């Protein structure tokens, strides 16, 4: 028996053995890690304060070209306005370490929120990166949607256009809006997990 046949035979045998395991990989919602962070106004927010509500977490760094794409086009702000208007809690979270790109003093954060007409419930500061690491936030943006039961029902990219060019907003499928719309209507989330895209979080 030649090498190729051996390879094929062995793999077929192992596939038979492991076949039961293939396809078991279902998207079980994981519990959202609890956190308590201070916003740019000095107010503390714990995830447990918002039990019973949908919560969106958006990792942010305004010096990142991918974040700029979503803010220069008003894409992020319009999502924030729409869903906070539907009683969704929306936290933008910055996990840049002190001295790293995107870590600003609070007064600069507040003036940026105003200049960009950003409309999250609050902008939370995570300079030690503990909340970012607990969630596994890799990029800016990186999005998480938490249901009223405290489970992560969506995590990953904001949409399916993984670039930073301004012309990539139009026609993009927005995964966050899709997850919120489905879950708020009592439907399962069709795409519960995607690969996030963007700049690395500056831990």
């Amino acid at each position, binding site marked *: 028996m030649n*090498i190729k046949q051996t390879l*094929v035979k062995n*793999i077929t045998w192992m596939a038979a053995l492991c076949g039961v395991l293939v396809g078991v990989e279902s998207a079980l919602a994981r519990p959202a890690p609890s956190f308590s962070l201070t916003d740019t106004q000095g107010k503390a927010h714990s995830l447990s304060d918002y039990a019973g509500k949908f919560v969106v977490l958006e990792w942010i760094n305004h010096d990142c*070209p991918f974040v*700029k794409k979503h803010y220069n086009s008003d894409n992020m702000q319009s999502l924030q306005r729409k869903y906070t208007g539907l009683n969704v809690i929306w936290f933008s979270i910055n996990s840049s370490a002190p001295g790293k790109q995107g870590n600003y003093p609070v007064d600069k954060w507040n003036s940026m929120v105003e200049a960009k007409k950003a409309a999250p419930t609050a902008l939370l500061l995570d300079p030690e990166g503990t909340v970012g690491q607990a969630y596994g936030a890799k990029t800016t943006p990186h999005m998480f949607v938490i249901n009223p039961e405290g489970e992560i029902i969506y995590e990953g990219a904001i949409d399916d256009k993984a670039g930073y060019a301004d012309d990539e907003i139009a026609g993009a499928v927005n995964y966050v809006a899709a997850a919120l719309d489905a879950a708020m209507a009592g439907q399962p989330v069709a795409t519960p997990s*995607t690969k996030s895209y963007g700049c690395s979080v500056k831990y």
Partner: protein
Amino acid sequence: MVNPTRVQHSAGWRVLTALMFLAATLPLGAAPRAELLSSVATVRPGDSFQVGVHLVLEDGWHTYWRNPGDSGAAPRLRWHLPEGCSAGPIEWPAPQRFTEGGLVSFGYEKDVTFLVTLQTTTNLAPASVMLIRADLSVLVCKDACVPHEFSLRAGMRLADETTPADSDRLARLADANARLPVADPDWRFASLREEENLLLFVDLPTTVDVATLQDSLFFPSTPGQLELSVASRWTMRDGMHALQLRPTAAVEPRAPLDGVLVWPESSAAAHRAVHVHAPPP
């Protein structure tokens, strides 16, 4: 902080020349340079020829492979070609792996050449010179990421014979071709899901020193297929070499595993990079 302003290389030879003069005389910091290299001086309509987009990066900066990894974005080329000339896909040189804060990315530092084959047709519009233009959008990162855009041009005469470009350009293109992964039918691959892992089986040619397999790194070409920060390791299964990888929760279980195996310069391996196509059973 890095100046996030885009370096816009404007259309028009005179403006381009002026900008190049400025770039040479002003300290622009992290500005990369790009050039369009053609393998030919003249083209006979109907022939194909290779071009390279050569990008030179400042020390410490990197750009990305077709799969950028956990962060970043792949470079993008947009061609502006005359009727009767069309561009093939980018041939990507073997990438390097970068890790930063637990995140893994794939790409290039110092310099890289993206190779593309252009095909002409015999009904190419008659003109003494064929001008080609490639608009390159590239994200260059160090601690921060800066987008750059280049409008690159080259010209070649249409003639009865296709003739090569000068020896300097040919040497640079030969170097770039040497950095491409090879498609070697003597290397065979298969992938298999095993509990939380994805096994990449490798059936290597008998001429290859098995020990050098340990030096290689696997780069998946599809974004989002693998948890890149989970260390991969070589293992044996039934006398076969298998690389144990961790798939993401989002991955389609029956998706083939495609990518490249790359050996570092320091390895004694004869191969520098081979294409991997590993279908499931």
